[in-house]
C-alpha cells in the first residue's frame, strides 16, 4: 500500500511538533480548513510557532509572520491596513495568540483594536497557562488550578487564587461585530462560529478552550473528552455575541457536577471538597443567573 499522503488541500499539515493530543493543534487544523488560502496567520510566541516555524519546518500553507508577545492585535491591525493600502484585498488577517498574550501582556493592544474595530479575526488559544514556557499561570488560568507559578503547597492559596478572566465578556463589551467562545469537542459549533467570523468584517474575536495534556496533566487521548466535559459541567460556556448581544449556543442539557471534570486533571487533584464546592457554587451562580435572565 503506498505511503498515505496528506490531502493537498490541508493548510496546516503533519510534521509540526506539538505534544501528542494537543488541543491547540486540533483547533488550528480546523481553523485553517475554514479560513482557506487567502489568509495571513500571525503567531504570538508560544507552542504553535515553536512547533511549526522552526528553521526548515514551516507547516502552514499560508503566509505568516512571527510576532512579539505584547502586541498581537496592533501588529495584526497593521498587517490588515498594509494589505489594504498595497491593494491586496479580502484577505483574512488572523493572529493565533495564546491566552497569556491575549489576556495579560497583550490586553491593552487587544482592547484598543477592538475599540477601533480594526479588520482582524483574532483567535485566542486558551490553554489556561503560559504552556510553552513551562505552564506558568496566566489571567485565564481557572481558580484553584496548580501551575508552576501558582503551585499548591502547604500554605494557602492552593493553586490560583483569583477567578478566570472572562475575555469573551470583556471583548463583547467593546461592541465588536462578532465574538464567540468555542472548543474542539463541539466541532459543529466550532466550525459554525469560525465560518461566521470569517464572513464578518471589522474586529472579530474567538476564544477557544484548548485542553493541554502536558500542562493540565491528563493523558493525551482524553483531550476531546475533557473539552466536552468542560461544557457539560458548565465550566466552559459556549456562546457568541454580535455588537454586544450575547447568545448561549450550547446549553448543557443536565449539567454534570464540576467534580467529574476536575478529577480528570492532576492540576486540580490538591483541591479539598470545600474548594471544589466553591467552584461548583461559582458555576451554579452563573447558570442560575443566566436561567433567570432567560425566562
Amino acid at each position: 500500500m503506498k505511503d498515505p499522503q496528506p490531502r493537498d488541500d490541508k493548510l496546516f499539515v503533519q510534521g509540526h511538533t506539538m505534544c501528542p493530543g494537543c488541543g491547540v493543534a486540533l483547533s488550528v487544523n480546523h481553523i485553517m480548513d475554514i479560513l482557506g488560502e487567502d489568509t495571513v496567520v500571525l503567531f504570538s510566541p508560544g507552542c504553535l510557532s515553536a512547533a511549526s516555524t522552526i528553521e526548515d519546518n514551516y507547516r502552514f500553507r499560508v503566509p505568516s509572520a512571527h510576532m512579539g508577545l505584547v502586541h498581537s492585535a496592533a501588529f495584526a491591525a497593521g498587517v490588515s491596513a498594509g494589505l489594504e493600502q498595497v491593494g491586496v484585498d479580502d484577505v483574512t488577517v488572523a493572529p493565533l495568540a495564546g491566552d497569556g498574550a491575549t489576556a495579560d501582556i497583550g490586553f491593552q493592544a487587544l482592547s484598543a483594536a477592538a475599540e477601533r474595530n480594526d479588520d482582524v479575526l483574532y483567535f485566542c488559544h486558551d490553554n489556561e497557562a503560559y504552556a510553552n514556557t513551562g505552564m506558568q499561570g496566566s489571567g485565564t488560568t481557572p481558580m484553584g488550578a496548580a501551575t508552576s507559578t501558582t503551585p499548591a503547597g502547604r500554605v494557602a492559596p492552593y493553586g490560583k487564587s483569583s477567578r478566570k478572566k472572562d475575555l469573551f465578556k470583556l471583548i463583547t463589551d467593546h461592541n465588536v461585530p462578532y465574538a464567540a467562545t468555542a472548543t474542539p469537542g463541539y466541532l459543529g459549533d466550532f466550525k459554525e462560529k469560525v465560518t461566521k467570523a470569517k464572513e464578518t468584517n471589522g474586529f472579530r474575536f474567538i476564544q477557544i478552550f484548548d485542553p493541554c495534556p502536558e500542562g493540565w496533566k491528563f493523558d493525551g487521548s482524553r483531550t476531546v473528552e475533557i473539552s466536552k466535559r468542560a461544557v457539560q459541567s458548565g465550566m466552559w460556556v459556549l456562546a457568541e455575541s454580535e455588537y454586544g448581544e450575547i447568545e448561549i449556543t450550547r446549553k448543557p442539557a443536565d449539567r454534570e457536577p464540576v467534580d467529574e471534570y476536575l478529577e480528570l486533571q492532576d492540576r486540580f487533584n490538591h483541591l479539598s471538597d470545600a474548594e471544589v464546592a466553591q467552584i461548583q457554587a461559582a458555576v451554579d451562580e452563573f447558570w442560575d443567573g443566566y436561567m433567570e435572565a432567560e425566562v
Partner: protein
Amino acid sequence: MTAEQPRVTPEPTDETAAETRVLTGNEAAAHGAKLARPEVVSAYPITPQSAISETMAGFVASGELDAKLFRIESEHSAMSSLIGASLTGARTFTATASNGLFYMAEMLHFASGGRLPIVMAVANRAASPPWNVWGDQSDSLSQRDSGWIQLYAENCQEALDLLIQAYRIAESDDVMLPAMVAFDGFQVSHISEPVVIPSQEAVDDFLPPYDPEDSLAQSLVDGDPKAFHHITPPEASFFEYKYRQAQAGERAKDRIEEVDRLFGERFGRRWGGLFDPYRVDDAGVVLVTLGSLTTTAKAVADEYREKDLPVGVLKLRSFRPFPEDELATVLEDVPVVGVVEKDHSFGLTGSVYGDVAAALTNVDGQLTQNFVTGLGGREVTTEHIREMYDALLETHDTGCVDRRSRWVGVSR
C-alpha cells in the same frame, strides 16, 4: 564632503520648489514625511512631537495624503502596527519622543531585526523623572544599539529634507534598515523659520515607490506561502543573519553620502552626508556637535577665528551608522577635539563622546574632551560655547585635559 552649507535658507530654485513658508520644525517634519507618501501612519501623542501627528492627520483628512492613519493607543502599538504594515510592503511613518521612544524600545529591535525600512521622526526630549517635557538628546542616543539608522537635523529645513533622504537611504535594496530622524524638541520642533517645501513631483522623482521583493502581500499574490521572522536556533542561521544586518549598516554609510549628494543636485541643498566639517582644515581645536546647538557653535567659531583663534566645528549628522574611519581621517591633524552633547550615559561620559573617542584612539598625541550641556531643555548660550572653546584652547596650550567630562551650564 565639505559642503557650501547655506547658513541662511536660500530662495527656492525654480521648478523643484513648491513654496517657501515659515514653519515650525514639527510642521516641516510632517511636510517631509507627507511628501514621501507613507501608506500607513501610526503615531501616539507626546510632547514635543504631537503636532507632527496632528499635521499628518490633517493631511489625511484633507485628502492631501492617501494613508491609513491609526489613532493608536500607545507607542509600543504604534511601532507594532507599522511593523505589520511594513511586512506587507507598505511604506510607513511614525513620530515620538522620550518616554514614547523608551516604550517602543522592544519594537525598535523588532523592526531592525526584521529589516523593515520604517522611518520615524524623534523630537528629542529629556528622560524623566524629574518630569520634564523639554529637549535633550538622551532619548534617541540611548537607543543607539537598536539597529536603527540615526540621523540628526540642525534646523527645520534639515528636518524636512532629512526625512525625505531617510526613506531613500532606508529603502535602498542593499540597506533595508529602519531610520530615525531626530531633532531637538522645542529648539527645532517649536521654533518657526522659513522652510522650502519641495514639490510633490520633484520628491516623487527623487524617491521611487517602496516595492520590496519579499513581503506578505507578495507571498499571497505569488501563492508562495512562507514564514517571516521564523525561529532560528543557535546552531541554525541567527548568528549569520545578524552579521548580514551589521553589514547592511556599514553599507548605509555610502548611501547616506550618496543620497545627500543626489539631494543637493536635485533640490539645491546639501547637508554634508555623514557629517559636515566647518573651518576644520587648519583648526587647532574642533568641537563636534549634534543637532541645533551647531548653529550657535558656528557663530562662536567665526567670532574666535576673527581673533585668530584656530577653532572649528564638526556637525555629526549620522550617529548610527557611526562614521568611525571617516571621522578619524578628517580630524587626524587636529590636536584637540571636544564633543558637546545634550546627553549623559550615567556611569561614564556622554554616549557620543564615547564613540568619538573610540574612533580617534589611533590618532597619537590627540586629546579629547566631553561637554555635557542643555539637559532638560536648559538653553545652550553663546557664553556656554565660549566656555567650551576656552577649555579646549587651554588644553591645546597646556597639553593636558583637566576633566574628561565637563558639565557646562549647570549650577554647582
